[in-house]
C-alpha cells in the first residue's frame, strides 16, 4: 500500500487536473453555473424547515432560528456526501477511454470526483456563511473543529467512492442500488433533525459514521461547543478503515479494469 500511495502522490498533478476538468465542464455546461452548487442544499434546507415546523407544532415548542441554522449547517455537507458518491459511481465507467488506453493510477478518478464535489461544497458553504452572519450566529474557538471534521468526511467519501466506482465497473446495476441508498440515507442521518430529538435511542443513529460528523459540525458552529470526541474518534476510525480497505481492494481489482469495462 505504501508503494501505491507513493505512486499516487507522483500523479497528484493529474488528480488536480481531472478534478479541474470535472468542475470546469460542469460549470460550463449548465447555464445556472454556481446556482447548481447551492440548489440541492437549498432544497434540503427547505424540507428541513418543514420538518422542524411540524416538530415544533407537535411539541408546542417555538421554532427557533438556531434550528434553521443547524439544518442549513448539516444539509450542505450531506449534499456533498450524496453528490460525491453519485459522481464517483460513474467516475470509472464515464472515463472508459482513459481506463482502457492510458496507464496511471486509476483511483485518481473517484478521488478527483470527490474533489470536484468538494468545490461545489465550498461554494455552498460560502453562501451558508453569509446566511449564518445574517442569523447572528457568531464565532468561537470551536470553529477549528470544522476543517478536522471535513477532512474526515472527505476521507470517508473517497473510501466509499473507490468501492462503488470499482463495483459499478464490474456490475452496471450497482449504481441503482447506490441511488436507493442515497435517496433514503437522509432519513437515517441526522440532517433534517437532531439526534437529541430522538431522546436516548438517538444514540443508535450515531453508529452511522456520517452522523457524528454532521452533529459535530452543528455543535461546533451553531452551539459553540466541542463535539463529542468519542463519537468523532469512532467516525475517524470507521473512515480510515473504509478508506484503506477501499484502496487495497481497488488496487487489487485495477489490473482487471481494462478488460472488464
Amino acid at each position, binding site marked *: 500500500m505504501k508503494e501505491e500511495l507513493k505512486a499516487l502522490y507522483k500523479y497528484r498533478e493529474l488528480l488536480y487536473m481531472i478534478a479541474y476538468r470535472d468542475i470546469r465542464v460542469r460549470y460550463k455546461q449548465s447555464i445556472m453555473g454556481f446556482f447548481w452548487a447551492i440548489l440541492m442544499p437549498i432544497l434540503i434546507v427547505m424540507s428541513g424547515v418543514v420538518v422542524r415546523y411540524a416538530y415544533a407544532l407537535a411539541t408546542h415548542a417555538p421554532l427557533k432560528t438556531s434550528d434553521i441554522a443547524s439544518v442549513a449547517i448539516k444539509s450542505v455537507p450531506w449534499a456533498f456526501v450524496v453528490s460525491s458518491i453519485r459522481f464517483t459511481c460513474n467516475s470509472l465507467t464515464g472515463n472508459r477511454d482513459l481506463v482502457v488506453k*492510458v496507464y*496511471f493510477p486509476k483511483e485518481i478518478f473517484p478521488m478527483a470526483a470527490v474533489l470536484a464535489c468538494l468545490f461545489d461544497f465550498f461554494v455552498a458553504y460560502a453562501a451558508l456563511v453569509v446566511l449564518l452572519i445574517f442569523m447572528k450566529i457568531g464565532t468561537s474557538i470551536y470553529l477549528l473543529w470544522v476543517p478536522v471534521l471535513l477532512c474526515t468526511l472527505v476521507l470517508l467519501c473517497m473510501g466509499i467512492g473507490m468501492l462503488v466506482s470499482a463495483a459499478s465497473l464490474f456490475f452496471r446495476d450497482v449504481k441503482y442500488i447506490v441511488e436507493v441508498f442515497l435517496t433514503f440515507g437522509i432519513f437515517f442521518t441526522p440532517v433534517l433533525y437532531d439526534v437529541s430529538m430522538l431522546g436516548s435511542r438517538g444514540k443508535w443513529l450515531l453508529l452511522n459514521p456520517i452522523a457524528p460528523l454532521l452533529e459535530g459540525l452543528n455543535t461546533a458552529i451553531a452551539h459553540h461547543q466541542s463535539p463529542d470526541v468519542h463519537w468523532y474518534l469512532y467516525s475517524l476510525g470507521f473512515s480510515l478503515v473504509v478508506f484503506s480497505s477501499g484502496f487495497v481492494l481497488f488496487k487489487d481489482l485495477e489490473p482487471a479494469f*481494462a478488460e472488464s469495462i
Partner: protein
Amino acid sequence: MSDVALRMEHIYKKFRKGETYNSLRDLLPAMTGKMFRAQELNADDKREFWALQDMSFEVKHGQALAIIGRNGAGKSTALKILSRIMKPTKGRMIVNGRLSALIEVTAGFHPDLTGMENIFLHGTILGMSKREIQSKLDQIIAFSGIEEFINTPVKRYSSGMYARLGFAVAAHVDPEVLVVDEVLSVGDYVFQQRCMDRIRSIIKSGTTVLFVSHNLKSVTEVCDRALLLEHGKTVMIDDTDVVIRKYLNTGPTVDTPQENKPVYISNVKVRGHDRERTSFESGQTAWVDVEITARERVEKVAVVIWLRDETQYEIFNTSTERLGCAPITLQPGQSYRCSFELTLNVAHGTFGLCVGIHRYDLQKSYDKQVPATLLFIGSTMAVRGAVNCFPKIVEQGLCDAEAGERPVYIDQPTQRS
C-alpha cells in the same frame, strides 16, 4: 542501470470469449444456478483463448523494434501489457525508464474544453508536469498547426484537427521508451510526414521505440528490427527487411482452388540479364516470364501484371492486350507463354509483383496471384518514395536578390560518386 530498455519474458495473455456477467442481476442467478450444475464450469474453460503465447523479446536502449502482424494477431494486447494497462496472465516484463504510449492520442480530450485546456489535461494524463507543458506550449501549438482555434472547444474541431492536436501533445512527452500504435493513419499526408519526421527525430535522440503499424513503409523507415506475430505467437524476430519478406510471403496468394479454373497461371519467373533472380538494383532491367495453361477452351484472354508497394498500393499495371498483343484463345491443354521486359525505375524497397489472367476487356478475371513473387530493390541513391526519378543536381548556389528574378548560380555542384 543495464542497457536493456524493455524486456518481455514468456508473456501469456488469456481472454474470455463471449458475454460475461456485468450486472448483479445476471450474476446472482447464475451463481446460484452453478452450485447445482457443476458441469457448466467446464463449458467456461472452452470459451477462453490465448491472445498472446510465450512472447519474449528484448529491446536495448536507443533501439527501435517493430511489431507486425495481421489484425487480431495480438499486437495491441502486447502494447497494452507493456504500457501496464493490462496485466499478463503469466510471465514477467521489465521497463526501464519513463514509458509513453502513442496509442490513442485523443483519449484524454474532453469535448467541452478548449484546445488550450485540453493540451494541459492531455499532457498531464500522458505524464508531463504542468511546468513541462508550459515550457513546450509554443512548440505543441505550432506542431498541431491550429493556432487560430486554440481557444475553441475541441468539439467544434474537425476530426483531423482533433487528431493533430492529440498527436502534437503526445509527441512532446520526451519519454525514454516510446510505444507507437497505428497513430499515423490520422491527418493529411503533410501532417503524416510531419509525424514521421518527429518520430524519426525522437529515435535519433536515443529514445527506445516500439512501433506497431500496418504501414510497412514507415516500419522500414523507422525500425531496424521487427517481430512478426501470428495468432498470438511469435513467428520470428529479425532484421526488418527479412521479417517483412516473411510477412508478405505468408499472405494468401491464391484465392480459389486451381482445379476450378478454366485457365490458370502455371508458371511465373523473374530473370535478370544473367539468371533468375528477385533482387535488383534500382534502374536495372527485369524480365518476367508468365506461362498460362487452359483446362477448357477460353477465348480472348490477356495476361496482366502489376506492381504493389509495401502499403499494397498499386504503382504500376500493364497487360499483353495494352502492349499490343492480340487477345489469346486457348484450346484445352494448351499453354501460352509471354515475357515482359521491365525497367525498374522504382526506389529502394520491397514490391509485390502480381500476375493475373483477365478477359481482354477486363470483364472477367480467370486467375490471379497476389503477389506472385516479391521484388527486392536496392539503391545506393538517397531517394525515398515509390519511384526513382534518378535525381541529379545540375546547378545550385545562393541567389542574389538584386540581380533580378533569376537566381545567380555561383558554382556548379561537385558530383558525389
